[in-house]
């Protein structure tokens, strides 16, 4: 993570938010380092009373990860293909979403809310014409996938440039200030 002075507002990517909320117990050394960096950085933003913003797609992403993780826990899927197995289970047997899973998902929702309510100012950016039209231009400019382009567009519509992500794909965005270094 960069140690530079924080700007007044930072944009958070889904990958960063999810990383900060993951328990590092089962992670590889690199992943543990990344998760620790994400959690330390979240605390720094809170302590320094800086504003954050994120595109609402991050909430959908977090929900998907929480749901797949809970299915993996319940049905003991525990290797690198675990999420694929959980997705298959969900597809073949929607009734696998039992009340205990719903309850645990509710707790995950509260955890996520605890974090974003703790920031001095937090903006949730919704879809709008300006974001989508800019995203199409950014797909071409940076060779981004559509979801990634939406995150960058949601930041640039507001005239901002400081983006927090662990995703290597954003290194293609040569004129944004990327706050996480994955190397």
């Amino acid at each position, binding site marked *: 993570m960069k140690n530079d002075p924080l700007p*007044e*507002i930072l944009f958070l990517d*889904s*990958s960063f938010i*999810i*990383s900060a*909320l*993951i*328990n*590092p117990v*089962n992670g590889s050394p690199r992943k543990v380092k*990344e998760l620790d960096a994400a*959690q330390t950085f*979240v*605390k720094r933003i*809170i302590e320094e009373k800086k*504003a954050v*913003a994120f595109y609402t797609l991050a909430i*959908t*992403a977090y929900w*998907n*990860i*929480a749901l*797949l*993780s809970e299915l*993996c*826990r319940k049905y003991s*899927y*525990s*290797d*690198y293909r*675990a*999420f694929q197995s959980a*997705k298959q289970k969900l597809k073949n047997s929607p009734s696998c979403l039992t009340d205990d899973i719903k309850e645990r998902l509710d*707790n*995950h929702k509260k*955890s*996520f809310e*605890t*974090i974003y*309510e*703790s*920031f*001095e*100012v*937090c*903006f*949730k*950016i*919704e*879809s*709008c014409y*300006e*974001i989508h039209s800019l995203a199409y231009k950014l797909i071409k400019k940076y060779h981004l996938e559509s*979801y990634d382009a939406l995150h960058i567009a949601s930041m640039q*519509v*507001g*005239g*901002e440039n400081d983006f927090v992500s662990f*995703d290597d794909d954003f290194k293609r965005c040569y004129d944004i200030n990327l706050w996480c270094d994955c190397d």
Partner: protein
Amino acid sequence: MTKKLEKFKSKYNGAIQVVEKRKHSAKKIDEALQSLSIPKGVTLKQIKSCVR
């Protein structure tokens, strides 16, 4: 909210929500920050592909 943040907010034509700030204890924040357990071996790249 500062002038800069007000200006930032105004650029979204209403497609923006300001989250109400609440006071949470450091312990609660710590707990929230480590609340999600993902299976061993699942990488952030796989996580990314799962939300598509």
